[in-house]
């Protein structure tokens, strides 16, 4: 019996539903497979050759499949040119999109079921949309967001401390701007200032490198710490303007509604406005004034923000600090009269009281000294000064600077030293030694004078007038013909002219003497500037002489206060150059500064940062003050 191929051609309907099945028998033993219309099995797939393959029976239920085009086909997952198939095992051969499934027929032939894997892809209009190609929009969004959240927030927040040991500073990306040159060494060490997370920088952080006082030892430690931290500059040590607790209380809310609200809100959110960092702003470019000193750039230091003016706090202060003793100074025109420290009792530990100059205070310095007598141009003192001659530094009627010696720089004056400043006329010589040299009484310690003179009797005859230096003053010992001791401390004696002396029997009592070093320690005054007399400045004529401010020529008592009062200052300060050539500014900074009210505010940028580079060992730091 001949073997036939029973073909079963199954075609899917495009509209769905039952497939179309056509059956046909191809007589054996051979059948052709291809795209050509005259093939026994027509496979209308362009991937298939016109004459692609042929199949023939090779035994009962066995078919041999062979390519005739050289193009392969697939059987059992393998790409082959030839295959022997046993219909009993239901093999399937694939040609392009067609599948030929073999199975034994009822006769000795084989049934070949031809199906097409018609998985035609029908594009949807969504291919026009980008979403069809770009699947990751949402994923991209989440990945980016999460990435930034992690890298820019969580890691710096949680691991900044740990990572800093590895020299990794993830929190540096939070820096809103560079630090000033003075603090640039802390650029990677955020925690040096931002000690506690979510707590505004507190003064402790600043003061750990900038705290002045209470003693040199403490200051040296503070400076040493700054050096350890790596600061290339010696920090400026500062003091509080006033007791810290009182500072914020004394300050009124700033002017302007927005600024008021800002301060109230800041305080409410634990961001006090009286911190160092409230005024000294970092991470921002400092504003340089137009007339900035190029040698002291303000940009080298944190930007200084004046949150309160002097006047704003020093106006109506009693309403905020009822117990304050400070007198309001709403403006220069209402500056209170000077209240110098007036010595009310001299001695090794003198007592001082602040007394307004307007109440004409008298000073008790223990000294007998009439300025008038010394300054009279035709008096005995003047004559003696002329007699002393230029060779001795005199030669004319006395001037202030003959006795008051300017400090280096001329800002102030050296303390009076009796031997140096008075000794030219007021000789302390009491005897001539065996070598012919004069012997001087030790000034300053009463007991030593007493001991020196003990047992000594009078020598010489009593002339009149004062003796020149180098001469013994015989009348000092001739007062009553008694002992030199009693004579020295009695009228006409060496000590009697200037000291207040009393006797208790044979024991001399001398009122203690102390001269005030600084009458107005809460304000600055520079004698060296030309308008103030150019003291200590050679070749520069001052606009004013001492006598313009100090009424010494009329003073007959040592207790007179010769410090001029405010109107003297106001003659120039607060005036215009049209009114007076030496006109000066009248803002508080002229004489006061915030951290050291006794000193004038330095010009912006001063002292220049570069001058603060370490020059000494840490151990000796702070010794210079």
């Amino acid at each position: 019996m001949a073997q036939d191929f029973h073909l079963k051609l199954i075609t899917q309907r495009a509209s769905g539903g039952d497939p179309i099945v056509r059956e046909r028998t191809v007589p054996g033993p051979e059948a052709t497979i291809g795209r050509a219309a005259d093939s026994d099995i027509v496979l209308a797939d362009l991937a298939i050759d016109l004459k692609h393959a042929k199949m023939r029976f090779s035994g009962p239920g066995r078919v041999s499949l062979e390519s005739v085009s050289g193009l392969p086909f697939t059987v059992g997952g393998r790409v082959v040119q030839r295959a022997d198939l046993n219909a009993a095992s239901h093999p399937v051969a694939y040609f392009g999109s067609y599948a030929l499934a073999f199975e034994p027929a009822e006769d000795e032939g084989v049934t070949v079921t031809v199906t097409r894997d018609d998985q035609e892809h029908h594009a949807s209009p969504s291919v026009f949309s980008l979403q069809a190609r770009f699947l990751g929009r949402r994923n991209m969004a989440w990945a980016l967001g999460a990435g930034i959240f992690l890298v820019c927030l969580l890691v710096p927040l949680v691991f900044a401390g740990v990572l800093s040991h590895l020299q990794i500073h993830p929190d540096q990306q939070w820096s809103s701007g560079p630090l000033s040159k003075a603090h640039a060494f802390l650029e990677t060490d955020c925690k040096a200032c931002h000690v506690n997370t979510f707590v505004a920088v507190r003064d402790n952080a600043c003061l750990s490198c900038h705290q002045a006082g209470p003693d040199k030892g403490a200051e040296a430690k503070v400076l040493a710490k700054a050096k350890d931290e790596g600061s290339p500059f010696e920090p400026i040590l500062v003091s509080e303007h006033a007791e810290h607790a009182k500072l914020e209380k004394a300050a009124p809310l700033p002017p302007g509604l927005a600024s008021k609200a800002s301060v109230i809100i800041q305080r409410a959110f634990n961001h006090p406005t009286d911190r160092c960092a409230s005024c000294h702003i970092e991470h921002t470019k400092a504003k340089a004034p137009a007339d900035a000193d190029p040698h002291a750039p303000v940009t080298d230091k944190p930007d200084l923000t004046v949150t309160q003016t002097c006047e704003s706090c020093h106006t109506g202060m009693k309403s905020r600090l009822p117990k304050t003793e400070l007198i309001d100074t709403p403006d220069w025109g209402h500056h209170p009269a000077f209240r110098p420290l007036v010595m009310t009792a001299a001695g090794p530990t003198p007592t001082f009281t602040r007394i307004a100059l307007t109440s004409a205070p008298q000073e008790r310095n223990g000294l007998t000294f009439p300025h008038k007598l010394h300054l009279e141009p035709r008096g005995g003192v003047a004559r003696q000064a002329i007699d002393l001659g230029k060779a001795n530094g005199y030669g004319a009627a006395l001037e202030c600077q003959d006795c008051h010696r300017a400090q280096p720089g001329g800002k102030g004056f050296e303390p009076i030293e009796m031997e140096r400043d008075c000794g030219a006329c007021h000789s302390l010589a009491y005897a001539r030694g065996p070598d012919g040299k004069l012997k001087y009484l030790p000034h300053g310690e009463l007991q030593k004078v007493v001991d020196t003179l003990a047992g000594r009797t009078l020598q010489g005859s009593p002339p009149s007038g004062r003796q020149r230096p180098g001469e013994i003053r015989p009348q000092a010992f001739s007062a009553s013909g008694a002992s030199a001791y009693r004579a020295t401390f009695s009228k006409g004696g060496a000590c009697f002219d200037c000291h207040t002396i009393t006797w208790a029997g044979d024991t001399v009592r001398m009122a203690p003497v102390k001269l005030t070093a600084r009458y107005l320690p809460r304000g600055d005054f520079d004698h060296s500037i030309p308008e103030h007399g150019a003291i200590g400045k050679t070749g520069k004529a001052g606009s004013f002489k001492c006598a313009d401010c100090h009424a010494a020529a009329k003073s007959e008592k040592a207790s007179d206060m010769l410090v001029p009062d405010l109107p003297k200052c106001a003659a120039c300060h607060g005036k215009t150059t049209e009114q007076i050539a030496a006109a000066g500014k009248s803002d508080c900074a002229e004489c006061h500064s915030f951290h050291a009210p006794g000193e004038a505010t330095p010009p912006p940028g001063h002292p220049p940062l570069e001058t603060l580079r370490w020059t000494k060992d840490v151990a000796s730091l702070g010794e210079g003050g």
Partner: protein
Amino acid sequence: MTQIGAHTERVRQRTHEGFLRHHGFRYAQIATGLCVAAVGVYFVTAARLHEPPSGGSWLGYTLGTISAGLIVWLAFLGVRKRVITEGHYSLKAWVSAHVYLGLSLVVLATLHTGFQFGWNIHTLAYALMMLVIASGALGIWAYATLPQRLHANRGEITRRQMLDALERLDAQLRDVAQPLDRAGAAVVRLSVEDTELGGGFLRRLTNNHGDDANQRALKALRNLPPPAGERQAEALAKIEELLRQKADVLSLARRQMQITAMLEGWLFIHIPATFALLAALTAHIVSVFAYW
């Protein structure tokens, strides 16, 4: 068809001009007012501030708070548009406000910076915000102009019809190619199987399909050896005609894709950048208070 087209045109014009012109430019006016006020306050106040202008002054905090609030609200459009509501706060109003208030951030947030920029998280947040705004501006331009071009491009043919036409042409190509030998069939297969309609984002955006398989098939067709018989010759002529038709439809569809890519592309920057911005903004705010 013409009537329907005209109707669509009217509807389209109304909606697309709608969100920009909404309520007589109400939100444009609000946004402008906000900007003018901010600029005015800035230039009056900044000079009087004690410190250099920055986000840390009271003005900085105020502008920063407004800006941050706006950013969060603007980002909520993504949530809002998924919720169908009725009433005054229509989606159109939201979009209108989104557009104008979003643009106003250029002014508000820039003033908030006090013109201080650096390589830090704060400037990153600012840069991302500007990226979001720039891509959003691109979106406004796209939504205002491209639908018209999209419509003009496709004429009266729908996208579905374009795809159907391509499928039909492919089917015809397959049929017509049946009598061809292997080389001829390969040419047709090149067009039918390898032609890529779209492609990646850049290819769509530039509409550059230089290696288009259909064009290559056309070229290869001309290089085929002379046909074996009349039937083949006839088939080849028919195939050339079909390939040309297919090229025309492809060109139309791809232009459509290009405009669509422009219409949608900005969102691929706008949305991820918005997420990045929200994260950077959070980091910016938290870090400022962490290191207060």
